[in-house]
């Protein structure tokens, strides 16, 4: 029986606490009285995933069984989550492969021969052949990709998008034309966090800038408290309104959602998901050996090693059918794995940021993504209230090198050099700079033909953190490159003691400190 999440109060006997720190780790002694929020242990996985998938397809929620929706001569499109999920990538076979193969088997039995598979990447970079093969499997890739039937969504293809209508709020809904004109759109989702899935799969994953700008903006993100809490998320409200347009004017959608447990690190590195006082001799020796090796390893090599790791995630649920009904169950399953009850807010929230976020798979975690992971993702992993009080301090640990992947993140470089040199205020950034980046022909070209994130994507990363920026009194980056950290508008600190000293200007000398011990991921339910 996996243990639930846990809040530890640090005392004199508490061993140093693990902080993820990019492609490395730090052990930090938190002051006595600090709290550490640990994630629940991994839930037990489904025993027979393929059987669970088949059951979900044949006994969907609020929908006819999938075979009843398939008929000869129909247009069937299968869209699936892109390389940003799951993190780290899961061991083969990826759950998307299992589901897609099951759907294709049923389609074949029904005599459906017009099938397209689309990586629903919105404005993310295109997936490479290797990444597509990992997600859908070699059999599916070889059967569809060479004939042009398996491809990446292209939000800038002037002939490839279809306008479906607007919501009562004036939000334009434009999605991939092939998907829009299909008799059935099957969406294959992986839910890592409660922000994923639901109408966001189609209304975001298959959309264009024209559509996305209605919810990927500062106002929406600052009114999503948090974006992980669907009941209080303007981001979700907007996607759900768009979902209604999709339901009324778009294709029939058959949503398949999955949840994973938070089994993130394989042996011998599984001590990274143990509580420190439970580390055995072998765990400590492994950690010390790993630290020593990492200290001597160049960053590029470390990055390559870390990104090659595959997580032992296991599937905990599969549900299919009507989008909203499915997503309610999915969300409950995510919460079952991730929620940890926490009493009261802290003055200072500390966290260690790992080497990966959804936007740097096989890439560089550049400073903008550090901001997004800390203030966008981890800060927002709460229900109720943030873990840190308004005006409090966030201390996040990451090396934050001034480094960018030139192929994946070209507009990020310009955003960092030009935009952040002038202002870090999300509203001003949005008003002054967004349009020119979104419509830049060069970025558009690189998004469509290379492996670049769309020109506007760094803006979205900054907006992702805008609720955090608005809420926090100060952000301190522990162990970060000072120049890069200052460009972000944050303060660099070389030690935790220095960081806490800096924080004392804002929160006084005896702050309540909470450490967010992730990954593995958790979500704080703050009362």
């Amino acid at each position, binding site marked *: 029986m996996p243990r639930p999440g846990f809040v530890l109060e640090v005392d004199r006997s508490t061993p140093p606490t693990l902080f993820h720190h990019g492609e490395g780790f730090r052990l930090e002694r938190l002051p006595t009285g600090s709290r550490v929020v640990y994630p629940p242990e991994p839930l037990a996985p489904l025993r027979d995933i393929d059987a669970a998938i088949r059951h979900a397809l044949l006994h969907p929620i609020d929908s006819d069984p999938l075979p009843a929706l398939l008929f000869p001569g129909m247009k069937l499109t299968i869209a699936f989550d892109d390389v940003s999920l799951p993190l780290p990538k899961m061991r083969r076979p990826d759950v998307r492969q299992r589901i897609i193969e099951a759907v294709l088997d049923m389609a074949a039995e029904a005599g459906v021969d017009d099938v397209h598979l689309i990586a629903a990447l919105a404005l993310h970079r295109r997936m490479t052949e290797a990444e597509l093969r990992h997600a859908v499997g070699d059999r599916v890739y070889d059967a569809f990709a060479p004939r042009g039937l398996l491809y990446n969504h292209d939000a800038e293809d002037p002939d490839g998008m279809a306008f479906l209508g607007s919501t009562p709020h004036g939000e334009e809904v434009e999605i991939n034309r092939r998907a829009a004109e299909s008799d059935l759109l099957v969406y294959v989702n992986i839910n890592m966090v409660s922000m994923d899935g639901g109408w966001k799969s189609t209304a975001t994953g298959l959309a264009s800038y024209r559509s996305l700008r209605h919810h990927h903006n500062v106002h929406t993100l600052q009114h999503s408290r948090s974006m992980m809490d669907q009941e209080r998320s303007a981001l979700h409200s907007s996607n759900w309104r768009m979902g209604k347009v999709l339901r009324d004017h778009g294709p029939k959608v058959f949503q398949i959602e999955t949840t994973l447990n938070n089994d993130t690190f394989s042996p011998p590195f599984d001590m990274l998901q143990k509580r420190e006082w439970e580390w055995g001799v072998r765990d400590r020796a492994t950690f010390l050996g790993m630290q020593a090796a990492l200290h001597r390893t160049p960053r590029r090599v470390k990055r390559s090693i870390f990104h090659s790791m595959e997580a032992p995630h296991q599937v905990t649920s599969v549900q299919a059918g009507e989008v909203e009904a499915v997503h309610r169950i999915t969300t409950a399953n995510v919460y079952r794995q991730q929620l940890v009850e926490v009493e009261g807010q802290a003055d200072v929230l500390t966290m260690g940021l790992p080497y990966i976020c959804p936007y740097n798979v096989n890439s560089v975690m550049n400073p903008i993504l550090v901001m997004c992971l800390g203030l966008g993702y981890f800060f927002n992993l709460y229900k109720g209230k943030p873990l840190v009080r308004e005006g409090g301090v966030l201390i996040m640990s990451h090396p934050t090198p001034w480094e960018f992947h030139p192929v994946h993140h070209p507009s990020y*470089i*310009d955003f960092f*050099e*030009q935009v952040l040199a002038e202002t870090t205020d999300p509203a001003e950034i949005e008003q002054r700079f967004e349009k*020119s980046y979104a419509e*830049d*022909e*060069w970025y558009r*070209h690189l998004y469509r033909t290379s492996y670049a994130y769309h020109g506007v994507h760094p803006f979205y990363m900054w907006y992702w953190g805008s609720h955090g920026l608005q809420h926090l009194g100060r952000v301190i980056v522990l162990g970060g490159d000072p120049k890069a950290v200052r460009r972000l508008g944050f303060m660099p600190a070389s030690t935790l003691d220095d960081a806490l000293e800096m924080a004392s200007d804002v929160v006084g000398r005896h702050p309540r400190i909470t450490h967010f011990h992730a990954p593995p991921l958790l979500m704080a339910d703050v009362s």
Partner: protein
Amino acid sequence: MKALQIDRSLPRFAAARVAGALRSGSGARVGPIELADREPPEPPGAGWVPLRPRLSGICGSDLATIDGASSRYFEPLVSFPFVPGHEVVADAPDGRRVVVEPVLGCVTRGIVPPCPACARGDLGQCERTAFGELSPGLQTGYCADTGGGWSTGMVAHLSQLHAVPDGWSDEAAVMVEPSACAVHAALRAAAEAPLGTVAVIGAGTVGLLTIAALHHWSPPVTLVAAAKHADQRRWARELGADVVVEPAELPRAVRRITGSLAVGDQLTGGADCVLDCVGSEASIQQALALVRPGGRVLLVGMPSSVRLQLTTLWHREVRLEGVYAYGTEHLPDGTTRRTFDLAFELVEAARLERLVTATYPLARYRDAIEHAADAGRRGAVKVAFDLRGEKERNR
């Protein structure tokens, strides 16, 4: 009188070259420059008057000479020993304060009739800088007969003198000559209007003044500048640049502003005009990569021997043009003005006296030169010799 003097000494030039390559400005310690007691120069003819310098700036070309980095092209165009200093504000015998226009053209050399360039008023293009009644020397400060501003006494032809308006500080006046160079560059850039995007590489004195001149006399739609140091970036913004970036960021900034695509390191479009105010191999090459097809690269900073990849220049029909000194300018409104007159206006309008950030007595010339050579990193712009307190001057 007291003067900093440069003698022809090949071993000392060689030593300066080595030292200067290791650390800019250190040629002052081992090179051919020294502080000397010497007789004041005699007026070489009618129309020449003695001057007592008050302030005299240190220019990039002076630094190149001191560090032995100047091109050997100049050898026949100078005469030894010479006293450097061509950015000069001085007291004239009639009691006026004057700024010296240092180019030694046909009039100063007693050449009649003047060469076609001097006849047009384009002094910088004079064809007789090594001829006539004066020893060779393209400017005051490089001619053995005239002396230069880094001294307590020099001579100048009456045609070289521009009266300093009442109420002006010496610091403002000493900025007139370098500003004239910048005005000339800006108006050359504007000769082919309209200017959409103009890029300025370098934000030393020449770069900053060029930014100010462009902003004042011929503002482009977007003026983007590359500056290495934080203070330089602040000045560049203050003097009129719309976008200021670090040098390595400039290609991306120009691409973004012009909506260009890129092929490798080469923009497919680019800036209408790039003014290179550095003059190094790297800066010229960068300028060629930034300029649009059919655009112009103006070399404002003094280049020396460089090795360039010119295929892009050929393929994209880019024009590479030198910009030297000043003379007479043809303004967009059709009027014709002396560059120095425009420079006076610019100095006043942009309050360029603010750029004089450090002054030194002659005795501390090594410190002064090292400071000037490292000005950007040390937060300085124009470093000058202050002669006003020199004992020999005030006897």
